[in-house]
């Protein structure tokens, strides 16, 4: 009987305690924001969409090798003497034409492993996070600045140069341009 009355009392009392708490919260200001209208300020280290500053990329392929999901695809063609590719902002001399620099952002897991090894700090994560697409193919971001014809031209140039060099040395060197080998998952 005592337990019975205690249960009744506990039941009502704890409910009232809970109601008091929720009632108090009825008047505390909301902690949520109206998202598309109001946006939170993201911290500066935030990891979202990748961006590659192609002016600085030397095509060293380190980012691609660091990526655990192999979503960066890089193809490069060596430049021939006489071509000036400029230097990067931290003073490295570029020697490779980057004919292909694709990031499949749909595969990317935003781990940031590609960012750290880059010698010129040209691949980095931005604070853009709203980039939904209707087509999956749109997620293949192509960063290479050269057009297809240009890269084809560069390839031909290089092959020509190789052939010339081979002819000059009469002893061809078996060398192919550095290429990314993509392990498929």
């Amino acid at each position, binding site marked *: 009987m005592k337990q019975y009355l205690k249960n009744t009392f506990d039941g009502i009392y704890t409910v009232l305690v809970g109601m008091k708490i*929720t009632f108090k919260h009825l008047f505390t200001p909301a902690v949520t924001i109206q998202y598309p209208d109001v946006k939170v300020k993201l911290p500066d280290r935030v990891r979202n969409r990748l961006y590659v500053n192609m002016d600085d990329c030397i095509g060293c392929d380190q980012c691609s090798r660091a*990526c655990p999901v192999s979503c960066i695809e890089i193809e490069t063609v060596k430049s021939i003497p006489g071509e000036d590719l400029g230097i990067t902002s931290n003073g490295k001399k570029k020697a490779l034409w980057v004919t292909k620099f694709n990031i499949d952002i749909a595969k990317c897991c935003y781990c940031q492993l590609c960012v750290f090894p880059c010698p010129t700090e040209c691949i980095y994560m931005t604070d853009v996070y709203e980039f939904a697409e209707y087509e999956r193919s749109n997620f293949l971001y192509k960063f290479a600045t050269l057009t297809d014809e240009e890269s084809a031209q560069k390839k031909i140039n290089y092959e020509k140069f190789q052939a010339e060099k081979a002819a000059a040395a009469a002893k061809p060197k078996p060398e192919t341009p550095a290429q990314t080998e993509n392990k498929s998952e």
Partner: protein
Amino acid sequence: MALKTETMVLNMGPQHPSTHGVLRLELEIEGELILSVKPHIGYLHRCFEKHAEAMTYPQVIPYTDRLDYLAAMGNNFGYVIAVEKLLGIQIPERVEYIRIIMAELQRIASHLVAIATNGADIGALTPFLYLFRDREYILSLFEMTCGARMLYNYMWIGGLSHDIHPDFVRKTKEFIIHFRPTIIELNNLLTFNKIFIERTANIGILPIDTAINFGASGPVLRGSGLPFDVRREDPYSIYNRFDFEIPTGKGLVGTVGDCWDRYYVRVLEMEQSLRIIEQAIDNIPEGDVHSAIPKRIKPPKGTVYARVENPRGELGYFIISDGNLNPFRVKVRAPSFVNLEVMGELCKGHLVADVIAILGSLDIVLGEIDR
């Protein structure tokens, strides 16, 4: 005269509001009474262990994030400790301190989700939102530090990906001050609510010997009354420097080892984590968090097993190295996987509604179970 009736098989999940992901429970029921429960797993299988064999050691870390995605810091922690053991490297003090603060913050965040979902499964949706509000705060601390909210890839072999943000210490202290009243509020609103007690006390009692036999760990084991905590039993990192208690289930409102005990152990653990953070936050030594990161991670041949106390229990990594850049084998001892085993034992003789309460109190994460 007993009426001859058929039992009914009810599939709970993989699409069900409270199976915490994609678990499928096959319930054999008679009316609402449970005769047997069979968990079916594998809907979230992502071949983590096979993947790891094709990755270099640092590349595995983002994958470990995705095991127990509610406690990614803890997962990183276990993995890097294992590899560091294999490499035999010393890591700077600063790194140790930051790692411990992160792991404890993560423990709070993870327990918040566990408590919140346990409450929400039983029908209390409001505490859920309050606790998620505070979890957001922790996630913002992480975001500020490493840029990600859930899958951090923060702890690296030999160091950390980023040093802490200049504001981190201040904001963490703010969080502690702000968070203590939340625990009290939670206790008033949910923990000691009569209905909640009725729903969880004396439900799903896990006796201590059964818990040990099944290999349960974490709050599930401690809820049964055994103060087993890897942080104390097998101190890794610098846990032996801190003063904290190991809360166990006492059967305060029911029997030792019931759902309420498992739940309450988590509430008490949050308080202990706060204590550890408080002890660590002011003593972070100066140093460079990148200094001990090896240029090339190529451990010698050998095997290693390292375990950490993740929010869900003992998380162990068994790594075999054949001296290459890739691990030969990475095996994960996932606490949720082991803890889920007791499900069938706990549910017998209870009602359908209790399955939800029991599952909530076991606090499983499917990412870790299916890997």
